């Protein structure tokens, strides 16, 4: 108990003095806790990486399979996360409460957990799928899980009240990834990738906004 109190006090003092980072927790340590700043730093890094990989994957997919096909993304409304109301501009992002925003981020991440797993497995069955695409599908699925864990940690730290309800949306697009018609199937893949590309960009942006707001006091 005393140790925890001491840790808390030192943690608060250090944050007040503007110390940028505490020592990183060594592996296997039980009581070590990362600072909120460190958690946000890592979250931003992972979200940026996820968006980067998904951009490349989208680009490669379009290049590889676009011959003769027109991969114009269908209306964005077809994204299964479209029902989630998310800030669409800077104003809205500024105005939303950080806890709500965090929950929103969590919701989006959870909503994508399932589709990414299926994406990673179904993309293997595409004819002549390049190795890079296969690898990237697996990568974003794993990294999404990592980010989800990190976000849950952050939410646990930041959240003052009760944990709100899970706001993630279900995904029913699996049949479309298993269509017999190759063209339709590839279109479905492309749309899914496109939707994820957009959502990963949203998550990345929201996290950066939150980081600047909470950690750096709007002075990144």
């Amino acid at each position, binding site marked *: 108990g005393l140790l925890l109190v001491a840790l808390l006090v030192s943690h608060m003092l250090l944050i007040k003095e503007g110390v940028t980072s505490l020592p990183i927790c060594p592996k296997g340590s039980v009581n070590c806790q990362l600072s909120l700043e460190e958690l946000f730093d890592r979250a931003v890094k992972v979200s940026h990486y996820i968006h980067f990989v998904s951009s490349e994957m989208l680009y490669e997919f379009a290049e590889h399979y676009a011959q003769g096909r027109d991969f114009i993304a269908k209306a964005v409304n077809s994204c299964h996360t479209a029902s989630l109301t998310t800030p*669409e501009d800077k104003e809205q992002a500024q105005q939303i409460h950080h806890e709500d925003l965090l929950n929103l981020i969590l919701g989006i991440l959870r909503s994508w957990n399932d589709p990414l797993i299926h994406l990673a497995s179904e993309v293997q069955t595409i004819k002549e799928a390049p190795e890079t695409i296969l690898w990237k599908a697996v990568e974003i699925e794993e990294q999404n899980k990592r980010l989800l864990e990190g976000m849950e940690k952050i939410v646990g730290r930041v959240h003052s009240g009760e944990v709100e309800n899970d706001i993630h949306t279900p995904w029913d697009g699996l049949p479309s990834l298993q269509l017999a018609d190759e063209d339709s199937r590839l279109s479905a893949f492309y749309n899914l990738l496109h939707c994820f590309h957009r959502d990963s960009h949203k998550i990345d942006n929201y996290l*950066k906004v*939150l980081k*600047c707001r909470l950690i750096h006091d709007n002075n*990144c």
Partner: protein
Amino acid sequence: DILQWPQISKCRSPEMETFSCFWTAGNFYNLTVPRILQLLYKKSNEEDWKECPDYITSGQNSCYFNASYTSVWTPYCVQLASKNEVYDKKCFSVDEIVLPDPPVHLNWTLLNTSQTGIHGDIQVRWDPPPTADVRKGWITLEYELQYKEVNETKWKELKPRLSTMVPLYSLKTARDYEIRIRSRQRTSEKFGEFSDILYVSFSQIGIGCEHCTEEVEFPWFLVVVFGVCGLAVTVISIMLSKQPRLKMLIFPPVPVPKIKGIDPDLLKKGKLDEVNSILACHDNYKTQLYSDDLWVEFIELDIEDPEEKNRASDTDRLLSEDHLKSHSCLGTKDDDSGRASCCEPDIPETDFSASDTCDATSDSGQFKKATEKEEDLLCLDRQDNDESLPSLARTDLQHRHRNTQSENSSVWAPFEDSVESPRLSVHTQISNQNSLTSTDFYAQVSDITPAGRVVLSPGQKSKLGRAQRAGCTEQNFTMDNTYFCEADVKKCIAVTSHEENEPRVQEQGYNEDGYFTTESLSTTVANLGASTAAAPSSEMPVADYTSIHIVQSPQGLVLNATALPVPDKEFNVSCGYVSTDQLNKIMP
């Protein structure tokens, strides 16, 4: 003129809060009734096309959408139309068209200068574009800096980075530089426009070094050229040099075929007993090299030959023609008692008791055996009249110093590499000399006297007519490789022959070891042969036996100059040693 339709050239958002679209009107505008172009837009979740809210703010032929009209992750479609006609259409979402404005407020400060004052480091700083809200984290920018000297044409680029300052190291203080920076959204690929150019001039802040001497760039080209020339000169000089050792060091000789079962290293190490044990595989032959005298190694020959056993004396044996088992090719009739016919089981034993006529096969066989016979370190008869023998075998034939013994003694030259080439020539020679003598290419050692002398197969008595040939050459032979008997080297042995030309061994034929390799010998002999063209009928000096006088392993063996006591003959220097080098050359 080509008709150009109105086109939407691009849509761009500088900060992800607003965006603008630009178009070109085309040239049909002047041709027909002037039409009014409209830009219509539609968000993806809307049904109706709406008109552009602001045609002015972004300039002519543009449409500006302010923050209230901008939804970042929402797909838009815009179309350029006039009344009923749609000329162009584009669909995008705002986060995909972000191209930031250039950075502003570029400046630089001096970090430090080198001791000589020729180079300096600077730190360049700038501010993000004012439109981009980096502070709130709404947009994250990366920057790419480019710089060059004022009079250069190509810009040097630095890696894109997130920070708004960067050091530039090792700039020349005597030169002026230009710097420019551009930015892009971190998740995009495209950069925005470049900033204004920042001029860096060291002289302005007083540390310019106009009088500094220009640093000469390292003259790589000259270095390479001279290096190559030097190397070529060195290589050529090595190749042309007469230093055998150096030559062999740089250009090692190509190994010659080996003899099965015989390791040249054994020879090198001077372990002749082991060699002999290998070679002495035949029942008929025993070789025994070592005696008490460390300096003397003897080749013991097999004396089990019944014929030989009948010999009364070594000398007789030596001189006896009956036991000639020399190369029939050579015409010798020496006993082939010491020859390589013994050692190798796989070597077909030639019929040495064959007649003078030699046939090719036996020739080759004998030659082979000859070469394999390492102990046959005997001087070869020199066949002066056979100038056509260029090989080492021939060299051996034209042995430096001649014993006057019978030509029946065949001198074996264990020069394997000479086997092939001289074969024919020897052949010829033999045939030439058949009448005269048995040409002795090889002398086989028939016995070893207790005194340590090697008893060679009897030389041909018929060759007695042939005088001993002085194994001297008049010429300068290449010293490095020639074998010379010590005596030869020391003096030219006069050969009491009725032959005219007897080249003299020149004393400068010495090498420091007192013997010479076969090569030199052969060269010498070749020279000799050439020089002694006038002695066609001369019989080749009888083959020589020598006892090994000195073993200087690994360099070789010096055979004893004193020859066997052969009556009526002047045994001159028993040359005919083969240095280890030569042996190695001959041997595989």
